[in-house]
């Protein structure tokens, strides 16, 4: 222990500015904290030491806070490592960058359930004492972080914690209401204590919630996130990047496009330290989405008029629907105003004169002449349909403005399909066909079904060649059959097309009942956002941020002869893992893979050393296989085990998994490699050795 501490101090002195030093300190603190936890395993020791240790550290903390104009975020005391603590205080004095180190260290420490009770109580106290100074994510902080080539792995790690913790919560509201939400295992053990805390702190919680929402940093983050002109959280992406490479990865893993609203949201949420604050920020985002919808303002970082991309995550699809609905509402307003003004002008034209010459002067108003010579206003006409003319009147055929179909995200598609399968309904098709018929009639007075079919379903009409050749036939007013005919299937008795045609009335599209109600659709989405399960939200954000990091890293590493193979192994691994449905079981592995890529970018020498060690071990065993292929095997085997086991066993496995991931990332990592792939049997000692060296502890 002393030796390790010495190493830590030594490295801090010589290279405290480097990313490597930051990473080392974080990792070392993991180790130190775990050892402390082991020492405190005895209940007597815990209860005996707690009052003593807590008091002096608190005093020291207060004293430091007071003596310095700067405030630091409270961190759990490291019992027995007074020297380590004092070193941190020294580092804090040196400048702002050290504060960032502190944030990362705190981030790591929060994963330890041992301190949760103290953490919460002291955190509340700290909040009361120095609310405004609390180290929360800010626009400045996040903007500074974009100088890193890819988002820090600590951000992704926090989202991973949220995915796992969120899977134990019932809803987002439970997360907000829960005082110790990030430690379900701990909470289970101390139910009575939790109940007492809930009673005592209920009033304070409400106060904290409203204070969070109006916190200046939160407001600034919301404004920057939704600023359509801003370049908040924009990173330098290689300009030589192949378009397909950058856009294909997010879709392969069901994420979101780079620099989209989803990815930026993921980066912000991943910087919050508690699950509860993440949930509160999400609620604030939903409130902002409601405001934008009410004001009919587009969401930035989302296409304005695209149907949902089913290969992206559901959250991104839902954002697309919101923007598409805004576009449709705007268009309908314009079309309605245009139609209304045309009708007003038509009325004034009629009042002025009923002469035929009025037709020429009223150019914006379109008329069609019936066989009786009567002029009828065309409503909702869009543009001429080629050189088609109406069969009976000879007037030009106009394509009408038509209603657009429903905007369906993947969840609604599944529901629609199940509905059709259950009921046999063809309602959607009939509704659209009827709507088209009514719009066509309004735009083409004097039309008949044959005219509509020629426009809507050309293959169902056959022109009479004789009439085409002989222009005199038309002038002589020969019967309809001389000019062409409907297809046999369309002439068939009981054909639904004819029945619909006879039912339809001439009504322009903008005056029809909507086929797809934008208000209803968006309200459904916003309600779904409020009710969204935490693991669903954080899972999508996790995958999206993962895709961004890999997308940016690819052009930097693909040309590097040392790292390109390892990078593509990592990429293959994440694609395979994300295409599976059980993301919760894979987030830890994905974070480790991401950390490897981060290391290749920020600390290439260390990464190169790791690769060489792996290669040497692989060569010795005589089986040159990638460590990530092995990872896939392990996870594949795990999935099969889960599939075979009884539901009770599954529950137990989930509990164990949760406990492990929260006790220590290192424990999780060791258990990851400790599990044997069932098909390949027990790995040989040398293979096991190579697995261990694949993930060296720095």
């Amino acid at each position, binding site marked *: 222990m002393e030796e390790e501490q010495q190493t830590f101090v030594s490295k801090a002195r010589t290279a405290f500015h480097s990313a490597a030093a930051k990473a080392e300190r974080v990792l070392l603190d993991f180790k130190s904290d775990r050892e402390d936890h082991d020492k405190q395993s005895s209940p007597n020791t815990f209860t005996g030491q707690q009052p003593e240790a807590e008091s002096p550290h608190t005093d020291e903390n207060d004293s430091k806070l007071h003596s310095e104009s700067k405030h630091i975020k409270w961190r759990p005391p490291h019992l027995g490592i007074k020297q380590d603590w004092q070193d941190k205080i020294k580092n804090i004095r040196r400048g702002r960058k050290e504060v960032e180190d502190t944030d990362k260290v705190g981030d790591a420490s929060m994963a330890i359930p041992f301190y949760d009770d103290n953490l919460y109580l002291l955190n509340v106290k700290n909040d009361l004492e120095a609310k405004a100074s609390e180290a929360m994510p800010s626009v400045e902080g996040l903007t500074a972080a974009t100088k890193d080539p890819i988002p820090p792995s600590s951000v992704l790690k926090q989202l991973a914690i949220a995915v796992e913790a969120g899977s134990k919560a019932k809803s987002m509201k439970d997360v907000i209401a829960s005082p110790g939400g990030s430690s379900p295992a701990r909470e289970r053990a101390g139910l009575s204590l939790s109940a007492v805390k809930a009673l005592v702190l209920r009033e304070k919680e409400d106060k904290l919630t409203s204070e969070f929402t109006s916190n200046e940093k939160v407001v600034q983050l919301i404004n920057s996130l939704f600023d359509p002109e801003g370049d908040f959280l924009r990173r330098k992406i290689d300009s030589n990047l192949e378009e397909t490479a950058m856009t294909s990865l997010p879709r392969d893993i069901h994420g979101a496009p780079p620099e989209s609203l989803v990815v930026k949201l993921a980066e912000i949420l991943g910087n919050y330290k508690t699950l509860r604050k993440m949930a509160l920020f999400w609620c604030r985002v939903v409130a902002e989405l409601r405001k934008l919808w009410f004001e009919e303002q587009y969401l930035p970082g989302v296409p304005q008029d695209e*149907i949902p991309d*089913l*290969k992206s995550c559901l959250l991104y699809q839902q954002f697309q629907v919101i923007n598409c609905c805004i576009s449709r509402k705007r268009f309908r307003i314009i079309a309605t105003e245009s139609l209304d003004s045309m009708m007003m002008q038509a009325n004034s034209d009629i009042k002025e004169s009923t002469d035929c010459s009025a037709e020429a002067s009223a150019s914006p108003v379109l008329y069609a002449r019936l066989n009786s010579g009567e002029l009828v206003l065309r409503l909702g006409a869009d543009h001429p349909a080629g050189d088609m003319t109406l069969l009976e009147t000879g007037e030009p055929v106009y394509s009408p403005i*038509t209603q*657009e*179909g*429903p905007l*369906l995200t*993947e969840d609604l*598609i*599944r529901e*629609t*399909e*199940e509905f*059709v*399968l*259950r*009921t*046999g*309904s*063809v*309602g*959607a*098709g*009939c*509704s*659209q*066909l*009827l709507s*088209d018929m009514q719009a066509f009639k309004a735009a083409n007075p004097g039309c008949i079904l044959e005219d509509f079919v020629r426009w*809507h*379903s050309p*293959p*169902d009409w056959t022109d009479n060649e004789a009439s085409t050749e002989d222009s005199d036939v038309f002038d002589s007013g020969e019967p309809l059959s001389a000019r062409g005919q409907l*297809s*046999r*299937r*369309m002439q*068939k008795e*009981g*054909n*639904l*097309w004819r029945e*619909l045609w006879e039912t339809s009335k001439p009504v322009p599209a903008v005056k029809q009942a909507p086929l797809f109600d934008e208000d209803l659709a968006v309200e459904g989405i916003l309600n779904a956002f409020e009710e969204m399960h935490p693991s669903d939200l954080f899972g999508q954000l996790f995958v999206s941020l993962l895709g961004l990091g890999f997308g940016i890293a690819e052009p930097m590493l693909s040309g590097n002869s040392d790292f390109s193979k390892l990078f593509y192994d990592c990429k293959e691994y994440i694609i395979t893992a994300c295409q599976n449905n059980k993301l919760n079981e894979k987030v830890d592995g994905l974070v480790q893979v991401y950390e490897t890529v981060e290391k290749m970018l920020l600390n290439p020498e260390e990464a190169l050393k790791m690769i060489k060690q792996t290669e040497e071990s692989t060569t010795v065993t005589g089986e040159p296989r990638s460590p990530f292929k092995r990872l896939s095997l392990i996870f594949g085997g795990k999935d099969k085990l889960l599939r075979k086991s009884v539901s009770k066993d599954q529950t137990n496995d989930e509990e164990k998994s949760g406990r492990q991931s929260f006790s220590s990332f290192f424990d999780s990592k060791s258990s990851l490699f400790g599990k044997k792939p069932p098909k390949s049997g027990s790995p040989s000692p040398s293979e096991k050795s190579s697995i261990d060296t694949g993930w060296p502890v720095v």
Partner: protein
Amino acid sequence: MSSSSGQSSGYDLSFKILLIGDSGVGKSSLLVSFISSSVEDLSPTIGVDFKIKTLTVGGKRLKLTIWDTAGQERFRTLNSSYYRKAQGIILVYDVTRRETFTNLSEVWSKEVELYSTNQDCVKILVGNKVDRDTERAVSREEGLALAKDLGCLLLECSAKTRENVEQCFEELALKIMEAPSLLEEGSTAVKRSVLKPKQESQASQNGGCCS
């Protein structure tokens, strides 16, 4: 024209098949011919329709849910949602109308690329109406060339004479079963449906009520 619907516990795999192609090439006729041997003229499909068929291929009992789409351009967006998670897609053209063949590469294969969420889905090219050989406008060689471009099989059929109709669906099912990821999906779908005993699938009539 009632379709036979398998019991939820009576089959091993469940696959979703999609029929696409220009209007009037005979998609609905192919489907009805496969399901019930009927050869009568069918009204143009409005929107989407479906039929369910169980059959045994390669020793496995399969349940095929076959979605029949209207080929008119106005219905294209409406039907794009049915591409989702389809394991098999049948692209149909009319051998007597060259335009329907051209549109497979210019229109329909692009729709598949855009809307299909299943990268491994199996495609099959079907040239229909070969019974009207005197009016043929697309040769078999041209069909084979396009099938090669699209990376799929070609079968020439006649819904009227039922030539190659069953082979078309069976060949597609066999190809789907050869893909591990699709096999897994088909197996998963069966397990999921067992948990929903109340869900009864039934064939729809074109006369279904409008909403």
